[in-house]
Every structure is written in C-alpha cells, then in structure tokens.
C-alpha cells in the first residue's frame, strides 16, 4: 500500500489548514480544495480514496459534489463534514453517496478514527487506487 491520501474540501481556509496540519501529523497525505470544482480538478489528476467534504460550498454544493464523484467512484470512502445538519440532512447525505456524516465541531480523534477505519476498509478490499481511466 502507498501513501494514505486524504482530500479535504471546505470553503473555510482556517478549517482546511487546521485539518491538513492534524492529518499530516498522523502521516496522511492531505490534499485540500476550497470548492467542489477545485476538488474535481484534484481528483481528475490523482486518485484519492478517502475524502472529507463540507456540504456548504460556493458553487456546487457538497451533496452534488459527492454525487458527481460517485458517478465514477463507488469505492472511495467519502465523509460529510458540515456546520449544520439534521435528520433530513443526514438522509440526503446518505442518498448522495456519503459513507459517514460529521457535524462541526468534531473532535480530531473522531476524524482520525474515521480516516483510519476508511483505510482499513480499503486495505481489506485491496483497493487503493481507483482507475482514473
């Protein structure tokens, strides 16, 4: 298995910086994007299988972004990270293809655990890179 790559998508730069620093400390290779379009650009260039997406994004929303990613990649483990949600939001997220759902503020320990479990799943599935072709 190669680098454990994580994509963080949030329009709040402070949050991106903090999470990048935290995940980097635990040995993850972190890619960040501040919008859905930027995130799709990143994913077009490289295969990243674990993602944390903010729902509220400028332009395309986190839900649409997830749907878009799921069109090509049904394997990746994609987590929603939102400042506000409710039960209906949770249902929406599941429907859009999110694997898990975290409401801000969330303890880093929970995020690390989620990342770890994601990579454990990928390990078990033996799928590390999704064929971009």
């Amino acid at each position: 298995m190669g680098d454990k790559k994580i994509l963080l998508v949030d329009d709040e730069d402070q949050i991106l910086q903090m999470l990048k620093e935290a995940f980097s400390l635990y040995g993850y290779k972190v890619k960040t994007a501040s919008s859905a379009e930027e995130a799709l650009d990143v994913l077009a260039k490289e295969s990243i299988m674990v993602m944390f997406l903010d729902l509220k994004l400028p332009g395309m929303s986190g839900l649409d972004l997830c749907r878009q990613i799921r069109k090509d990649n049904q394997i990746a483990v994609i987590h929603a990270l939102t400042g506000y949600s409710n039960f209906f939001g949770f249902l929406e997220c599941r429907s859009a293809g999110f694997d898990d759902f975290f409401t801000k503020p969330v303890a880093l320990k929970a995020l690390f655990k989620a990342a770890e479990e994601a990579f454990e799943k990928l390990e078990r599935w033996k799928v590390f890179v999704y064929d971009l072709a």
Partner: protein
Amino acid sequence: MTDTKQDMMEDKREHPKAENLPKIEVGCGAAKDDDSYAAGFKAAGKALAGITSYRLSAVIVFASASYHLDEVLSGIRAAVGRVPIFGASSAGEICNGTLSESVSVTALASPFLSVGVGIGKEVSTDWRKAIHAAIDSGGLNRYFTPQDGSYYNSMTLEGRSAFAILFSPASTSHSDSYSPEILEELKRLSLGRLLFFGGAAVDAEKTSGHENFIFYNDQVCSDSMILAVFETTLRFGIAMGHGLHPTAKRARITRVRGYEVLELDGRRAADVFAEFHDLKKADLESKPLFEQNLNHLGMRDALGHYTIFTPRCFTPEGGILLAHPAPEGAFLVLMEAVEDDMIAAGKNTLRRAMMQSGINRPAAILVCSCFLRMLLLGNRIDEEIAAITDIMPGTPVTGFYSAGEQGSNDDHISRHNNESIVILLLGNELSYAAQVAGENRIMQRALEFRISEQKRLEKELADQVRFLQTLIKTIPSPVFYKDQQGRYLGCNRAFEEYNHISRTYLLGKSNWDFLPRDQAELHCKVDADLAEKGGKAVYECSIAGKDGELFHFLNNKAVFHRADGSLGGIIGVLVDITDRKNTEEALRASEEKFLKAFHNNPTMMIICTADEGRVIEVNDSCLRIMGFTRLEMMGKTSGQLNIHACLEQRDTLLRMMEEKGSVRNMEISLRTKSGEIRHCLFSAEQIQLQKGNHILLLLQDVTDQKRSEEERLQRIRLQSILNMAGTICHEFNQPMQVLSGYIDLLLSRAWEDSKVHGSLLKIKEQTARMTQITRKLMTLNDPSVQDYAGIGKIVNLNGDQGK
C-alpha cells in the same frame, strides 16, 4: 169677460186647503142717502162686510133712478175696487126686504164662479145690434155661436154650467120694450143652453118715464142692455112664478101683429078685453091699461103654467098692445089676482128653484119682481119677500122691481113674463156635474201620474236592461245564466269564446252536453248546493283551450229570483285567473328556491326588525351553529339571547348601522347557547319587508379558519427560528471546528507542561459546552419562550421550564 177661469184657479190656489170655507160668499147691503156717492159707498160697504175669504167676482147694483147714478157707481167703485159692476135702475130695491128710493148692492165672491159682462146700447134703435155689441164687449161669443156648441161640450166635460143675467130696458113713454125679442134672440144664439134670469130696467116713474138705465162698470147708460154670463161649478136654480089664477074667460087669438093682438075669437080684441071686465072699451082708453087695476091675460104652457101678458093699451085699430108678443091661434085667458097666493108666489118660486137645483145649502137669492106686483099688493108687498126669508132664513135676498122679467120654469125654457117674480138661487155647494168632473180630474191626475210613473219606470227598466245587456256583452269575463234545472238561458260572447261554443247551441243545454264528465259533476254539485241553500258560491275550475292549454277560472255563482220571489236560476261570472295561477306557481317556486337558499346556506342568516332588533326569521345554519331552537330565537333580541361575547363590538355594530345603514365583514365574537365563543364575519343590510324596515344579518363562522391560520403562523414562526438556529449553528460551528481542532493538536503536544495542559483542557471543556449548545439549537422544535430575568423573553433550549 173680465174674470176668467184663471182667476178662479188663482183664488183656489190662495185657499188650497180651505175645506171648511164656503164655496161662495155673498154680501148685500142697501143704503139711502141724499148724497148719491155716499149711498153707493155705504151700500157697497155693507155688502163687503159679508166677503172675508175670496176676491170679488162681481157686484150687482140696483138703484132708484132718482139718484145721481154715476155718483152712486163712483161710491160703489171706491168701496169695491176693481171688479165687474153691473145692474139696473129699479122701481124698488130688494135687500132682505123691500125698499124704495135706495141703493142695493150685492157682492158675489167665489173661486168657483166667473163672470163675463157685456153692454149693448141704443136698444130701441136696433136691438139686434145691441145684442151683438153686448156679446162682443163681454167677450161672450163662445156662448152665443149657434153653429158651434163645442164650448158647451167642454163645459159639460169639466162639470161647469152657465146662466145669464139680462137687464134690458123696459118700455118708456116713447119707446117699446124689446125684452122679449132680445131674450128670444139670445135663446136662439145660445141654442137654448143658457138659462136666463133678469128683468127690465125701469125709472122712477115706472114705464111711463122718459128713460131707464143700466149700469156697466162705471157707466150709466139709458136705452141699453146688460148681458152677464156666469160660468160656475156651483149649483144654481132659476124659477119664475106669479101667483095669478086663470079665470073661465078666455079667447083665441085670431089675428095678431107683433105685440098687437088685433082680434080675439074673430072680434076686435079691445072689445073682447073690455067685455071680460064687464066694461066698455071707451072706459079703458083714457090711460095705460096696466094702471087701471085690470086683470091681465095669461097663456097656458105645456106644463100648465101661465105666462102673463100684460095689456098695455088699446090700439087705434081696436087691438090690444101686449107687453110681449103672443102667437096667433093661442088662447088668452083672463087671470085674476088672489093676494095671498101672490104673496106666496115668491116662496113657491123659491121652492121650485130649490127642487130644480137640488140646493141644500143656499148662498144667495136674487129676485126680480114685477113692479106691477107692488101695485097689486099695495102695502102687503113686503110680505112677499118676508115669506121668502121665512123659508130660507139667513140667506141674503137681493134684487129689484122690474118691468118685465126673464126666467124659466120646470121645463127649463127661459121665457119673458110680466107681473112675475123670478128667483135665481145660488148654492153654496158644487153641482153634481162639478163633483163628478172634479173626481174625474182627480182620477185623471192620479191616472196620468200613474201612467207617467209607469212610463218612467218602463223607460228606466228598458235603460237598465239595455245597460245590463251591454255590460254583459262587453264584459271580458265569461258570464252565463241558467234555469233551476241547469239549462243555459244565456251567456255573453266571452263565454262563447272560452268554451268554443255558440250561444245558439248553448241555449237549453246543460253542462253534461259539452263539458268533460268530472267538470260537469263539479258544476252540478255546486249548482245543487246553491239551489238548496241559496246565496253565493266561489270555486276554481278550468277549461281546456283549443291548443290544449289549460285556462284557470274563479267561478262566481249566485242564485237569482223571479219577481214573485221564487227561484229563477243561477247566474255565474268566470274570472280568468290563469295568469294569476301561473304567477302564483312561479312565486311559490321562487319562494321555495329562496327558502332553500336561505335555510341551506352555510352562512348564518337572521332577519330582524329594524327598530327593536327582534328576530323574525333565522336559517338552519344559524340554529345549528348557535345551538338554539327556532322557537328560542324567534321574537328575541340579541340582548335577550346573550350572544354577543363582546358588548363593545355590539355597540360598534349598532353605531355603524345607524351611521352607514350597513356593515361589511366585521369580525365579531359570538357566544353560542352552550357558551362556546365563535368568531364570525358580520355583515348587515337594511331591507324592506311587508312595508316594514328590517335588517338582514349574515354571519360567517370563521372560528376554524382562524385556528388553522394561527397554527400556520406558529409553524412559520418555528421554521424561522429553526432556520435562524441552523444559520447560527453553521456559522458558529465553523470557528468552533477550528478551535476544537487546534485544541486537540495543542493537547497532543503540551502534555508535559501540566499547567498549559490543564488550561487547554478547560478550553476544550468550554468548547464542548458550546458544541452542546449548537447541538440543542439544531434539534430545536418548540419555539416557546420563557421570561429572562424580567427584562425580556428567550427561547427555552433545554425543553424544561424556568431554567
């Protein structure tokens, strides 16, 4: 004729109901005076004393020629005024006794008596001319037209009869009297229908004087005659007598020339007459024969009465000149006078006049007595009049002593006579003919009245019939009438048209002949009830039109009766109520429609009086929602029903109604019978019902809408709060995430510095608390607020109270 029948009528009109008044009033008076005027005036005055009730009809005057007669007449005229006056100069006057050198006035006054008086002059010159002058001047032609008796017939029809008084001149020293000729001519001209009474005027010297006079109003005329015709409905009688007796001496007139009897029994008449008296002719030639106290001659008439022929003188031819002509071949009888019989002649004559006329109530006795009787009776002359007065006491006796008299006997033939007494008796009673004519007149008037009344009634009846026929014909409603058996007697055109039946066909038919059975039965039942109970009946019936359209009628029927009160039949008038029925049906349908719309309308509706607000109608919705029964609401006011939850609202409503007359969609709260408050939109409008002001109230119950609206607002409010909370959470959680992340990173690095580590843990703890707050905010579902320290309200995030 000066007084006319009209005058009679006028007098009757003056005393129309004078049942007890006499039919005639007669007054007589006599006077002697050196002053002629005074004598006339006094005598007239006495005569007028007897006249109290009626206007004078005529005044008859007898006066001695020794007076200044024109002055006498002036005196009389002054007393009696405008009334015909006539009379004659006299040898003596009679006024309830025998007088001489006097003025005697007789006044007659009666509405049943009219007098025409004419004068003829120069009688000795041409007595015929004088007669016609008298007839003409008196307007008496109708009595003296022998070729035309129509006036007498009309008199007879009206119960009137007539007599004439004739005063003609007696002979004078130089002229003969033509009284007999005048009488005979008048008899001829009047066809013998007039009875004559009268005598010849004489002067103071009897017949030997120069002239005598008659009186005609204010004229004193000599050698003249007066003819007065009295037309009357009173009873009267005329009789003549003398009291002389025939002797056995008699002779036939064998030769005569007018008044002159030339021979008797073929001998000279003068000789025979002298022999009758056992005298020589020469002894009698010296003076007038009638002055020599000789017996007179008489001639027997058919009734055995003797007419007296007074011998006046012998003629040169040895004849005798008589006072009036005697016919050749007749016998002249020498008459002798017995004084007592002569005195009784007056009363006997009066009796005959009474018997002839049937008078029971005498009014006056007029007497003409021959002056020769004065000579014969001498100083017993008074007894003649006294005998008359004895048998008829109290009845005025007036007249004069004349020289030749006219009168009639029981044969009703007027004759001239000499040495006679003639009586005209006037009765104070109507003649039988007058009574019959009077009754006839009354009956005729009654009959005329009844006939005219009947004609008037017939005309009225004809007019009414015509009017009714026109009315029935013209009236647009069908009219019919039928007999007791229900057979049609007639109908109008409208009836024919509605029933499509001709009148000709209808007559005699009954309803069964042209109406459907059910209708005929209905009509017959009503007719039978009417015939039994009488009165009127009104009921509805219908007739099918040609095109099948049904006409509805109100049939008004009543019985009619014949003149004798028996039932005549039934009359009916049909009033077309088809339009009315259709309108009623439309109205009923319309009413039903509106009634259903009213009661089934979900909007509550109330109609109440404008003045008191009492409920007069309420719909079912209102009853259902408000919980009252109709009975509970009817007639009540809102105050009595206590339905206004807010009295201020009620006052506002009343004020608005008063100011604007209507209210639109005002929200009010009403209390139902059970006390539940219902919110309603209130509208009101003034309406006119049955000429009264009313208010129509519409109440729309909006309680449920109001409640759901409030819930909707609550939801919107909650959603807003939730949205706001989400926003706050989102915005709050971003920095919280940064804070939380960095604290976790710092804790992982500063574990060896326990002081820093402790502080970071406290920050983490507070951050976790803040996270809890945002978590509660995100799950908020009850936006209810609670008091915050008495200065405001805050949402309870904990779901508990008072924390």
